[in-house]
């Protein structure tokens, strides 16, 4: 490995379910490869699955409001299905989503996109509709994880590594870091992970080790 440069190592795991503890999973699969200069990151949807934060459409009963509002959302959004919109309303609050819908609609008229997602609560952008995750979770809506900062600290403490992060990255060159252990810069990590090394589709690699992170950060000053 080149001095001062990070190396990304995707780590394969078994199919993680709500019976797993994410810290145990990371320790088992990534632990042996981790050093004190490394940062470990985990895909947010997999953390959410271990927290049981997913629902089958069959178990949901979308309201008339959710059915109507979902019609006005872009077709590629997870909120464009009645269940996706209902999930957003359940998580963010119905009134908040209605307010975000109207303000977002007005903002869109003036050419400003994405306002709905900023106002409707962080879950609006984090919910993955069906097909968003690998089997067997391709048939459920996966919500965003709870307490990503706390989980990142717990991972760092258990592994004794430089840091840990919970990231939401996709193949459309969009990366967001939802939680980090103390001292890490979420924006810097998002930049490093932008090419989606997770492969949280069928590659089954929801953990990525960022080798040499501390040394690279020191070299950058």
């Amino acid at each position, binding site marked *: 490995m080149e001095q001062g440069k990070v190396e990304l190592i995707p780590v394969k795991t078994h199919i993680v379910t709500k019976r797993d503890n994410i810290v145990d999973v990371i320790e088992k699969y990534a632990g042996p490869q981790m050093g004190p200069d490394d940062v470990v990151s985990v895909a947010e949807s997999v953390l959410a699955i271990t927290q049981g934060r997913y629902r089958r459409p069959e178990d949901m009963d979308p309201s008339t409001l959710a059915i109507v509002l979902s019609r006005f959302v872009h077709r590629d959004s997870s909120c464009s299905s*009645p269940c996706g919109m209902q999930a957003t309303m359940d998580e963010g609050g119905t009134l908040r989503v209605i307010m975000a819908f109207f303000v977002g609609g007005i903002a869109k008229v003036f050419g400003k996109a994405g306002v709905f997602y900023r106002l409707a609560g962080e879950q609006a952008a984090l919910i993955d509709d069906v097909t968003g995750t690998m089997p067997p979770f391709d048939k459920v809506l996966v919500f965003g994880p709870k307490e990503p900062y706390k989980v990142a600290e717990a991972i760092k403490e258990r592994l004794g590594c430089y840091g840990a992060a919970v990231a939401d990255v996709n193949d459309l060159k969009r990366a967001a870091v939802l939680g980090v252990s103390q001292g890490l810069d979420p924006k810097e990590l998002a930049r490093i992970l932008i090419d989606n090394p997770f492969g949280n589709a069928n590659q089954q690699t929801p953990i990525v080790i960022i080798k040499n992170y501390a040394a690279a950060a020191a070299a950058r000053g």
Partner: protein
Amino acid sequence: MLVILGYGLAFMGLVILAVALFIWKQGDADFVFDVANRSKLVLESETANQMEFSFRLPFRNRGSQQGTLMDVLARPWLPCEQFSAAELTTRVTAVSCPRNDGYWESALFPMDKIDNDVALITLRFDARGGDIRQAMEKMVDLPLNVIYQVVGRSDWYLTKVMVDLPIEEFQNAIKTAGGQK
């Protein structure tokens, strides 16, 4: 006061009408399994006590919105009162995303495409004690339900198409495979 209430109700009515018109014009995903253009049955494999047939069933989303096929399964109507010589199990997979575990992987299909994909439907007959060739001599016409679950702009729903597999098609598939051996 009544006039204001009247205007208010009229405005609400117009809003509801406008939303209804928008939803109607927007439409939804609409999957169609093209039974008329399915392929003929092919005998894929044969052992002493087992035969595996398959056929291809094209499908597409002819709707005005993209939609997800969350599940597709084939359910045979083959009661033991009619045919008990072999046990039939089925598998369905998308040709674009082939799997051999019988699990249909949810997939999003764009709207208004002429040919979205093809479902590969496999029928496996296991003879109940004895020779599969002898068992298949007792085979009857097979009505097969292809049941599919759709998620689109409206709430999820299940629907189905019927595929009729006549006995002659099984016989021809066996004969053709026999001739190729």
